């Protein structure tokens, strides 16, 4: 039971969910605006490398974060150029970004640091450290609430709070602002936006900037918060799990949070199950647990858990009629 529901697992769930949540929200902005983004993985990896390299050279985690965001937005703009301006195939562009980044990060890492593709180990101010939420002392006397507050909610890196705050903010932007209304319309019927006299390209580029920003934060969190530096292939498919979470959540912000938490939880449990021997079952096949996010998504797509209908225009380059 401890393995499944202990404070340790729940804390770990929050930490592991954070990059998934950020990346899935990044994908949400992009896909809701009609651009399929299979390159979340690549952008996150690029951002993680930039964060690790810059933080180690400059000696500051904040500069690392800044570098991560810049690199990720640039990659996002590359994807934008290919799929919006050049009207290319969005899947191909995304896959290309994934491959190019995976190679270039190791190449540059080896050239600059000579550590076999890693960046140097980060210490102290080079990392984003955990912060304690205010008022722990006051609340700690209250049973359960105090325990939850100090044990679970407090004591995470700042980017964890950023990620979870991004959920209500995203909801508000999407459904309560002009920008959000136009963004959603872009993903469903860009021609309606165009004939209303609004630029489709400009709107989609802006969505991709936000996508890049969030992916950058996700990557920075991997290198500066979850680990202490960049290592080869450190995203390990998180971009794809984020994409699965996005589909699982039916492209809705609050659902995205729960999907990310669920998939993060499965990952946390999977890690703790490693090598454990249970009565009757024997050793739990960890690969099965790791595959669960994908299995659940496929089950959803097959129509067993409601219906996942993507934004209608996603993946289709916009070309004016006639």
């Amino acid at each position: 039971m401890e393995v499944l529901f202990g404070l340790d697992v729940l804390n770990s769930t929050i930490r592991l969910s954070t990059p998934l949540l950020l990346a899935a929200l990044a994908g949400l902005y992009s896909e809701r605006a009609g651009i399929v983004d299979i390159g979340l993985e690549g952008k996150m990896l690029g951002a993680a490398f930039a964060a690790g390299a810059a933080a180690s050279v400059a000696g500051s985690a904040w500069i690392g974060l800044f570098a991560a965001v810049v690199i990720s937005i640039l990659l996002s703009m590359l994807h934008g150029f290919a799929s919006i301006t050049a009207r290319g195939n969005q899947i191909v562009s995304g896959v290309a970004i994934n491959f190019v980044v995976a190679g270039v990060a190791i190449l540059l890492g080896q050239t600059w640091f000579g550590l076999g593709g890693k960046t140097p180990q980060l210490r102290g101010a080079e990392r984003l450290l955990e912060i304690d939420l205010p008022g722990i002392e006051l609340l700690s006397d209250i049973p359960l609430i105090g325990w939850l507050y100090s044990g679970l909610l407090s004591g995470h890196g700042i980017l964890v709070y950023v990620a979870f705050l991004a959920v209500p903010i995203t909801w508000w932007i999407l459904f309560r602002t002009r920008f959000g209304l136009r963004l959603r319309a872009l993903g469903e019927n860009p021609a309606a936006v165009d004939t209303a006299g609004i630029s489709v390209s400009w709107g989609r580029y802006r969505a991709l900037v936000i996508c890049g920003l969030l992916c950058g934060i996700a990557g920075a969190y991997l290198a500066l918060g979850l680990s202490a530096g960049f290592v080869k292939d450190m995203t390990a498919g998180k971009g794809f799990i984020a994409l699965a979470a996005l589909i699982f959540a039916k492209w809705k912000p609050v659902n995205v949070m729960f999907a990310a938490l669920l998939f993060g939880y499965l990952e946390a449990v999977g890690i703790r199950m490693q090598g454990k021997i249970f009565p009757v079952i024997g050793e739990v096949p960890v690969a099965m647990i790791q595959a669960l996010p994908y299995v659940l998504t496929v089950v959803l797509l097959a129509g067993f858990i409601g219906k996942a209908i993507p934004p209608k225009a996603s993946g289709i380059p916009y070309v004016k009629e006639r």
Partner: protein
Amino acid sequence: MADQFSKAAPAIELSGISKNFGPVQANKDIDLVVEKGTIHGIIGENGAGKSTLMSILYGFYQADSGTIKIDGNAIKIPDSQAAIAAGIGMVHQHFMLVKNFSVLENVILGAEGGAILNQGIALAKAELQRLEEDYALDVDIDALIEDLPVGLQQRVEILKALFRGADILILDEPTGVLTPAEADHLFRIFEQLRDQGKTIVLITHKLREIMAITDDVSVMRQGQMVATRKTSETNVEELAKLMVGRSVLLRVDKDEAIPKEEKLTVKNLTVKDDRGVVMVDNVSFGVRAGEIVGIAGVAGNGQSELMEAISGIVTPESGSIHLDGKLIDEYGSADPGALRKRGMAHVPEDRHHVGLVLPFSERENAILGYQGDDAYTSGMFLKMDAIEADARAKIEQYDIRPPVTSLKASNFSGGNQQKIVLSREMERDPVVLLIGQPTRGVDVGAIEFIHKRIIEMRDAGKAVLLVSVELDEIRSLADRTLVMFAGKIVGERGPGASEGELGLLMAGIEDGEEKHE
């Protein structure tokens, strides 16, 4: 508001507008004056340049040369934003609506009135209320677009334009998707708008609409504006002649039918749709060799499902169909391929989805459904030369333009696409010919040709079953007319039936008495 003291400047004044797309001259030196507060029709065949001209006016394209004046002021329209600012609103043929947005969200899109929606929404609601009352445009503003029938979706488009302060409304083929009743309602809305000082430009290729609703009419042919008339001073024959450049037979010449034995027999046929709703309800009739039986009715009263069942696309719930005296049921389920072999040719209602594969070439489309035939295949290989020769012959015989067998079907105009389908189905020497909406989206010149071909098929002894929502078409072609309402055949009339008589039957009113369903 129009200047009340001197004669107001025209709402739209175009002079010398030209536009080329590569070697194609879509608009050639066009002059057009549309007076304020009038309904101005622009008529022309498909590809005459009507839509290009209106796209220039709405800022989708830039004219290569020429000037645009709105309310007497010369302006440039580089994009749709500028057109909207100049008071021009457009209702496109294919609606520019976001399906899973509410009516309100669609209306305010692009005119939200502030970065945060709340501010704009309250104002928009009040304004919409006013517009709906002023112009009798009732729509539930909180309904989702996908839940609304097409007629209402169109009203949303009109509301969208009015909400942006449009004084000039351009409507591109607005009645193409509407039932006759919805179209009538739309025309009443036009009149209301005109009476309140709005200017309406109606693009259409239906002569009837021009005569029914417009004040003035301009005719386009091959990229040029060939004439402008007061509608009251012209007639259908003159307009048709101007459109096509030659006289057109609007009424089809045909001899009396000489029907022979029954080739198609439908008995107690019942068809349900995917949802299990009965769409064809215990229908029985026959079609004899050498006659055209027309099925009239407002779209959605079961005609489509009837055709699908007879052509073997769907399996009927109960009842029987005999083709040339033999029962169709030997496979126990729908099998259009087997039926084709037995002489059932089918020109489907929806040529884009059922009749053609749009990205395929003309010659491939010309053998679609018959590709396994010995004439076109030997073993597992297609006989490319035979297919090419066959396509050439059909192009010549049916005057399909452009005469290029390798051109994708999607690059042909509506009329020529229909001719591709007709040539394929008619040249197979069928026993029974099923034709759904033969002239939907087809220009006048091609309509004449298609009607003639249908009569020729009849005279050649084919049994022809014709389904059309165009009452005129049924009345001029059919030797017998069956009227469908709510899945049932509610009446049969001979060739002389009046429009009013059939119209009453189409509304479900039989012998002066309303049918209660």
